[in-house]
């Protein structure tokens, strides 16, 4: 019998990420590739859509977690209603001429470059010339004193550890012990929250959450540079481009995600610690979850917003909400959903900000294992590991401050599950009879534990990244086959010229969408891929080394009769033909 219409629930899909902190070695490859892809431009020199912090540490920008100072995110007012911590609409407009909570450039760092030209054009002198650092803000000489990860690897040291916001919440005695225990890395991107406070803070309404995939983006044409989003985001993941006067943020690499590719940070992650997948959720429960009275209940409240993609009722509701069939299937295969809700090993970053963040973390167990190993005991024995998780209250308290608003119980449960997996798999790897009591002791079945192990340890590319492509139904033109208008290549006559304000203004040229097939075709083609035209630019990254595209070499002067032919040149010409 068909259900009545009013029992239908709205379902939305959210592209989300889980990072396994056990595997992060702090190599910053994600930060560097992200920067090369997105913020390698003037005005955003100091901007790191992706950064890797050493914990304990100050983070980037410095001490961004101190919400008593920055007033980011949401809070409950006296009547228990959800309000922006920095003040509502009227207060935002009254403060619009000077945002009292905007981080200064000093809270980030002053970007610089080096005067490399001196190295080549300095006159002969006794001492080797040096390339002096020059500020990219003022153009003057600067002394470099800080940068995006200046306290990298210095986590527990007395010089920097005491500046950690979270450590201030834990007792002094714990601090001292903490310095001797461990340090780990925390890669951070925009959380693409379900209840984003940056969106709520934007006076222009330029920041929006996409209904299809939940990615939070800034409309560069509507942003007026009021800067309220920068202070509104508790994670400080919206940055102000000081050249264009517009806000910019992590885009979840939407041009890649739309065609089914993982983000650049995930693609290039050396430790393969990032998982991307869909989560189905009920948008009408978001406000209620964000209004949960106790901070420590927010983790469970947010999990309750997520829907089980295998539940037939959820599937029916999702289809009714217009979610395509392949997206529902992707949600069923989603590693993110599995890690958050099935195995329950992923936790949200700072749920107490009440934004319902959607980049979750598997807390690190390795420091605990190392600690046991140094005592000489078997570090993968279940009894030893469980006892260690129990004994090492300090890291658990610290992790709880990060991931569960201070409640150690969920962190303890996650670490026990991870510890149990290690012990259980160890028996299998050594050819011993696996002990079903181990998964049972953490409330899991043997098969489930093995599946979790597969996902955490062995998952291949297509299991770590389950990303359904966007339904634009323009696959044909994305393939860049030669059946479209032949003038529609970049800078071609079919694209129209630049506007009267030049290239940087007007409707921006969309980011070229590259896919693997295209790259493969270019790499294996017999002919150069660049179309022949007068205004061709040569992209050496795409040049396959065959032939030479026009413009790569300077055109040789027309031969004249009365000059000797250059033997070097004619040999080259022969080889070309």
């Amino acid at each position, binding site marked *: 019998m068909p259900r009545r219409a009013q029992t239908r629930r709205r379902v939305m899909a959210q592209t989300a990420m889980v990072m396994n902190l056990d595997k992060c070695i702090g190599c910053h490859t994600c930060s560097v590739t992200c920067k090369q892809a997105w913020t390698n431009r003037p005005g955003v020199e100091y901007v790191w859509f992706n950064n890797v912090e050493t914990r304990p540490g100050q983070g980037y920008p410095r001490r961004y977690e101190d919400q008593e100072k920055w007033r980011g995110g949401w809070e409950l007012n006296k009547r228990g209603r959800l309000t922006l911590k920095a003040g509502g609409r009227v207060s935002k407009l009254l403060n619009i001429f000077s945002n009292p909570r905007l981080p200064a450039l000093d809270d980030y760092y002053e970007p610089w470059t080096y005067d490399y030209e001196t190295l080549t054009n300095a006159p002969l002198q006794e001492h080797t010339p040096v390339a002096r650092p020059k500020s990219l803000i003022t153009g003057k000489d600067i002394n470099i004193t800080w940068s995006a990860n200046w306290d990298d690897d210095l986590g527990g040291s007395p010089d920097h550890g005491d500046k950690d916001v979270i450590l201030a919440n834990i007792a002094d005695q714990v601090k001292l012990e903490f310095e001797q225990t461990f340090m780990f890395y925390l890669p951070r991107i925009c959380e693409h929250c379900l209840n984003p406070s940056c969106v709520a803070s934007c006076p222009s309404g330029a920041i929006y959450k996409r209904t299809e995939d939940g990615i939070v983006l800034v409309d560069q044409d509507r942003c007026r540079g009021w800067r309220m989003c920068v202070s509104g985001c508790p994670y400080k993941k919206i940055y102000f481009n000081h*050249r264009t006067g517009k806000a910019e943020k992590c885009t979840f690499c939407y041009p890649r995600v739309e065609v089914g590719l993982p983000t650049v940070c995930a693609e290039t992650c050396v430790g393969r610690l990032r998982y991307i997948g869909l989560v189905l959720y009920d948008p009408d429960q978001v406000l209620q979850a964000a209004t949960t009275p106790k901070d420590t209940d927010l983790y469970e409240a947010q999990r309750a917003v997520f829907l089980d993609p295998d539940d037939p009722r959820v599937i029916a509701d999702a289809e009714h909400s217009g979610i395509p069939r392949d997206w529902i299937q992707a949600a069923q295969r989603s590693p993110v959903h599995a890690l958050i809700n099935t195995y329950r090993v992923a936790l949200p970053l700072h749920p107490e900000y009440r934004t319902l963040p959607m980049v979750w973390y598997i807390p690190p167990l390795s420091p605990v294992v190392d600690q046991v190993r140094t005592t000489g005991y078997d570090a993968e024995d279940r009894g030893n590991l469980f006892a260690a998780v129990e004994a090492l209250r300090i890291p658990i308290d610290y992790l709880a401050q990060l991931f569960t608003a201070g409640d150690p119980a969920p962190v303890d449960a996650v670490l026990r599950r991870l510890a149990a997996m290690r012990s259980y798999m160890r028996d299998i790897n050594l050819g011993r009879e696996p002990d079903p009591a181990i998964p049972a002791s953490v409330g899991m079945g043997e098969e489930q534990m093995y599946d979790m192990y597969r996902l955490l340890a062995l998952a291949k590319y297509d299991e770590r990244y389950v990303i359904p492509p966007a339904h634009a139904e323009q696959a044909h033109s994305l393939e860049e086959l030669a059946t479209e208008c032949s003038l529609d290549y970049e800078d071609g006559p079919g694209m129209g010229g630049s506007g009267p304000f030049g290239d940087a203004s007007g409707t921006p040229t969309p980011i070229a969408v590259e896919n693997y097939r295209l790259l493969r075709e270019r790499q294996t083609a017999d002919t150069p891929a660049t179309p022949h035209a007068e205004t061709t630019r040569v992209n050496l990254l795409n040049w396959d080394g065959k032939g030479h595209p026009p413009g790569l070499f300077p055109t040789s002067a027309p031969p004249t009769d009365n000059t000797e032919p250059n033997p070097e040149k004619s040999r080259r010409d022969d080889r070309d033909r």
Partner: protein
Amino acid sequence: MNPHAATPADTGALDSLLWVVLPYLALVAFVAGHAWRYRYDKFGWTTRSSQLYENRLLRIGSPLFHFGILFVVLGHIGGLVIPKSWTETVGVSEHTYHLAAVTLGTVAGVATLAGLAILIYRRRTVGAVFHATTRNDKLMYAVLALTLALGLAATVDSNIVGGGYDYRTTISPWFRSVFSFDPDPALMSGAPPLFRLHALSALLLFGIWPFTRLVHMLTAPVGYLTRPYIVYRSRDPQLSARAPRRGWERT
């Protein structure tokens, strides 16, 4: 139509140029310029805030200037747009109006000019801010400062130093006559020089307005007060660089 209207013979060619041709040129530049800028340069339509570079001086100067200029604008609407007969009908005598206008106008004008002075000082002395200042900005600051200074000087000169000048019988009708497309330049020819210079510099300011960073005024985010906090938007229907051609729409 207008009781003060003079015959065309009374007005010289210069008056016609200054008080008929120039206002319409400024008006056209203002309207068409904004339309053009909005069409071609949405990306450049921003406050270009420099708060990231420097906060201490901005914290004082910017609110002082902006709130000041908001009151100045309100005062101009009261003085130029609302006819004298209306205020007298509701029982506001010339003396009362004059007192209020001069007091509030002077306070707001001084606050605005002081704020602008702080902002210009900041712009010149803070290296990062000066580094980010374009020639366009410098021109805009010059014209803006000139207009504000002339306006404040005109008020102070005629009302506080002098015996008082009732601009609501000359300048205001001229201002309204421009918008009723029946411009009367003769009304302006009798106004004190400072008022006329103030009006001329204001015309220049409105002429260059759409091409400067002042455009952010037109998009003051008042809609924020009524919109829901979380904005949802559908993905752009097209992925490619061009809109699909007719007959080739996606299925």
